[in-house]
């Protein structure tokens, strides 16, 4: 059995190299087909009727006028009479018609009578939530929108705060945002035979959809084929077939025609997932030398009707070993669309609340923020990594030259500042099975039921195979995005690259061993005396006793050779191809106009520990993208609920703000590298770099203007209000 490990650094031809992404040309030239682009013969278009109220019961529903409209082929009620609707934008009915326009007519023709119920949407105010009665518990007492989720105590915080310490207390927070995938959620459903369904679906979970939809449709999971060649963004929100997917399939069954249902933008932003908010009152203390001594926090927020909020494990964030802590949590149930995993669940909120409180403490100590973080890395799980990264990040941003105490004292309305945040993430591999086939003509196929979210999954798979077989990346065909291939885990939690690269490497090494057995007689050697080098199979160290790759593969005869590599999941045993547990440091450099309140990005540095990097180019792109996503939620992005009506006020892209190309400043990425990091194996990096930008930018703003803006996003009104209230440098 081959030894499952990565080649040593000096032997890597393909992995670790800046290989262009394989599907780049197809995407950039418009040839790549997404679920939204699938058009089937005779296909109907489905449109959804959405609830206009934040909280209501359906009293009456009449679809007859819709059904009678020309072009309308079917109407399905999703939530009928008696259903309680708990957020603006939840689905009531699905109409399928020959054209989208006719389907829209059908939706408009459905008559619904709602019994409008009281709603609650204010997640900033935990006290108000505690007074909003939503029902009775089993003892007949009122239950409210606020749900105490627990309290945790370590050491003796009360005594610690009374000691010889410097203490700060403040308010912090980060608003609800959405995933805002550019390709909205949706499916094309087509029945290809009796009880045989093909589902094109925009999903992060190609292998995991069938088991979720077969039950509702009452067909065996094996009868469901799921296809997703390309996905236009997921960010954690696309693991399920969703109710619209199930009803699209029901509609296709009912009408006997393929049905496409893609969410409209307003629906996407109201119902297809949010990131829970987190707000906190934090008290934190340090000894005079800056060593952290005590922490007390109460945090709350909403994840929608469920009434959950940011997890306890995120507060305090990263600095988990601070002695003497008391943490309390209140979840708030709101009449808003429910949460879905949003890139690094809990962590960005934990960072935004924790790192801001810590920076305020550093300022109160009159201590340099960088020195303060370095002083306290011992309270984290990765002190060595953070120490090294803090120095590198400080160097890259020009800390020594630019840093100043809180409040830019230079003249004029433009104030400049720096801010730091640090983060951690797991990123251990998911389960994955990968078929690797060597064909007698020398071509190689890597095939598995995974998906490429734009992270470069296809590309790194080809690199792993090319590396193992001594061939070039274009010589490897990668088949993914189809549930007919062997299963791989869903792409969540930064688990994909570790999972699929390990499975692929194992399959490749097994296939290589199989090939060497077939080739050995021709080279008059034992299989174990052979090696694969660039373009050749040879007797170890003897280039004159060799066959070209193609000649070697021809020895397979007529049958291709297929081996299946398996990555069992996070525990990869003694052969560590992949692992988890990374740390990163980010520093922001911003300018704030104290007359307008506008925050502008100057520079941003992201230093990331990423284990063995298979492709620095796509890895850096992930980090750059994560930082830009962070700029969005740090200074502009927010899902806004109207307290009066409970409706979402900005379910569109004019007022649900994303950064444009001119809003991001200059971003520098530094990947930690070398034997120490290589030894960790491959680790996913979709989430870690998206965690810190909010905190780093908020700290930079505080450093610039001299006051803390409590809540993210740091919109102009919030910046001006903070200046007004606390008398900042203005």
């Amino acid at each position, binding site marked *: 059995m081959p030894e499952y490990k990565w080649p040593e650094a000096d032997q890597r031809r393909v992995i670790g190299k800046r290989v262009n992404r394989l599907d780049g040309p197809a995407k*950039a030239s418009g040839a790549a087909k997404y679920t939204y682009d699938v058009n089937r013969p005779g296909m109907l278009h489905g449109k959804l009727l959405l609830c206009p109220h934040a909280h209501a019961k359906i009293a009456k529903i009449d679809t007859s006028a819709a059904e009678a409209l020309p072009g309308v082929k079917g109407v399905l009620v999703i939530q009928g009479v008696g259903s309680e609707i708990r957020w603006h934008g939840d689905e009531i009915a699905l109409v399928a018609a020959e054209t989208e326009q006719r389907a829209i007519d059908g939706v408009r023709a459905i008559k619904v009578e709602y019994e409008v119920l009281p709603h609650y949407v204010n997640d900033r105010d935990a006290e108000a939530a505690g007074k909003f009665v939503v029902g009775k518990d089993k003892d007949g007492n009122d239950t409210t929108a606020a749900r105490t989720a627990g309290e945790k105590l370590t050491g003796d915080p009360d005594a610690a705060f009374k000691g010889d310490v410097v203490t700060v207390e403040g308010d912090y927070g980060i608003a609800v945002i959405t995933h805002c995938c550019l390709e909205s959620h949706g499916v094309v459903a087509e029945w290809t035979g009796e009880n045989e369904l093909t589902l094109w679906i925009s999903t992060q979970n190609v292998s995991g959809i069938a088991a979720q939809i077969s039950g509702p449709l009452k067909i065996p999971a094996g009868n469901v084929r799921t296809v997703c060649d390309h996905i236009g963004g997921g960010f954690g929100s696309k693991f399920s077939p969703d109710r619209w997917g199930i009803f699209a399939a029901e509609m296709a069954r009912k009408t006997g025609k393929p049905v496409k249902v893609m969410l409209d933008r307003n629906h996407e932003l109201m119902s297809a997932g949010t990131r829970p908010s987190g707000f906190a009152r934090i008290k934190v203390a340090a000894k005079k030398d800056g060593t952290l001594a005590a922490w007390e926090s109460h945090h709350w927020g909403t994840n929608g009707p469920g009434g959950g909020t940011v997890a306890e494990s995120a507060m305090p964030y990263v600095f988990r070993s601070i002695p003497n802590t008391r943490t309390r949590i209140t979840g708030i149930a709101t009449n808003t669309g429910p949460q879905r995993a949003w890139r690094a669940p809990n962590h960005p909120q934990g960072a935004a609340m924790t790192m801001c409180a810590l920076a305020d403490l550093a300022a109160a100590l009159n201590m340099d923020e960088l020195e303060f973080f370095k002083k306290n890395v011992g309270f984290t799980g990765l002190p060595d990594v953070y120490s090294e990264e803090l120095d590198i990040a400080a160097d890259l941003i020009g800390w020594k030259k630019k840093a100043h105490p809180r409040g830019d004292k230079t003249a004029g309305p433009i104030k400049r500042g720096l801010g730091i945040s640090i983060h951690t993430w797991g990123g251990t591999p998911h389960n994955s099975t990968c078929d690797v086939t060597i064909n007698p003509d020398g071509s190689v196929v890597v095939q598995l039921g995974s998906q490429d979210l734009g992270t470069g999954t296809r590309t790194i798979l080809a690199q792993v195979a090319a590396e193992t077989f001594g061939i070039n990346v274009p010589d490897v065909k990668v088949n993914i995005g189809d549930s007919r291939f062997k299963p791989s885990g869903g792409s969540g939690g930064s688990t994909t690259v570790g999972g699929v690269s390990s499975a692929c490497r194992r399959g490749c090494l097994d296939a290589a061993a199989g090939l060497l057995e077939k080739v050995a007689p021709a080279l008059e050697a034992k299989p174990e005396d052979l090696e694969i080098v660039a373009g050749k199979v040879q007797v170890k160290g003897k280039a004159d006793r060799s066959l070209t790759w193609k000649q070697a593969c021809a020895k397979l005869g007529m049958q291709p050779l297929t081996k299946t590599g398996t990555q069992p999941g996070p525990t990869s045993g003694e052969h560590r191809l992949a692992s988890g547990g990374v740390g990163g440091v980010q520093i922001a450099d911003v300018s704030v106009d104290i007359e307008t309140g506008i925050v502008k990005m100057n520079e941003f540095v992201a230093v990331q520990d990423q284990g063995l990097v298979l492709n620095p180019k796509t890895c850096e792109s992930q980090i750059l993208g994560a930082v830009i996503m962070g700029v969005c939620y740090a200074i502009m992005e927010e899902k806004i609920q109207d307290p009066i009506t409970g409706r979402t006020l900005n379910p569109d892209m004019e007022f649900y703000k994303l950064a444009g190309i001119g809003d991001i400043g200059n971003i520098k990425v530094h990947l930690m590298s070398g034997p120490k990091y290589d030894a960790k194996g491959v680790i996913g990096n979709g989430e870690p770099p998206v965690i810190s930008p909010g905190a780093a930018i908020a700290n930079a703003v505080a450093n610039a203007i001299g006051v803390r803006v409590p809540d993210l996003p740091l919109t102009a009104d919030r910046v001006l209000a903070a200046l007004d209230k606390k008398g900042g440098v203005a």
Partner: protein
Amino acid sequence: MKDPGLIDPTRSDESDQRMDSGGVSRRAFLRGSGAAAAATALSNSLAEAAQRDGSPKIAGPGAVEITLTVNGQKKSLKVEPRVTLLDALRNDLDVTGAKRVCDRATCGACTVEIDGKPAYACSVLAIEAQGKAIKTIESLGADHPLVKAFVDNDAEQCGFCTPGFVMACNSFLKKCPNPTLEQVESGLGGNLCRCGTYMGIKGAVLQAAKALAAKGGVSNA
């Protein structure tokens, strides 16, 4: 500053006169709707009367036969007048490179060129686009210097905004063939990306500008 990129309804050029074959130019549409302004709705009888008088033809409300010239090829299709160019391309002609994202002229994912100018296809009616040269991302091909520059600079992740961005860049480079970084940042403000590929796009535009200059500039074809 963002280049609105949309067809200017007030402009006076020959493209206005080229409307025929069942279509109606935006100017003619404005004239027609002006004539109907006294009525609360533009009823069929008014429309018919207007046509009898030799006034501009009013399309709809049912589906009408139209011809679109897409990437140099004439395509006949039948669409309701309310159908956007984007939906006609995607749903009727299976030309899916232009994407539907915001569907209201904010994000640029549907960017195409109409008579050489960038336009948000979600905000142009299909009937308006008759007689005009419509150029979509599919006309560029994988070997186009801009496409190559996007790949080289890894200016794409999920790729859903990418075709619109490439088209916007193509139009931008026509106007500004040798841009500075600042010009790139202001000239491409009409497109949005969620994955955060802007750093790559900046690099791609600067690379493509050089490559295209060496080839004699962006083709207007």
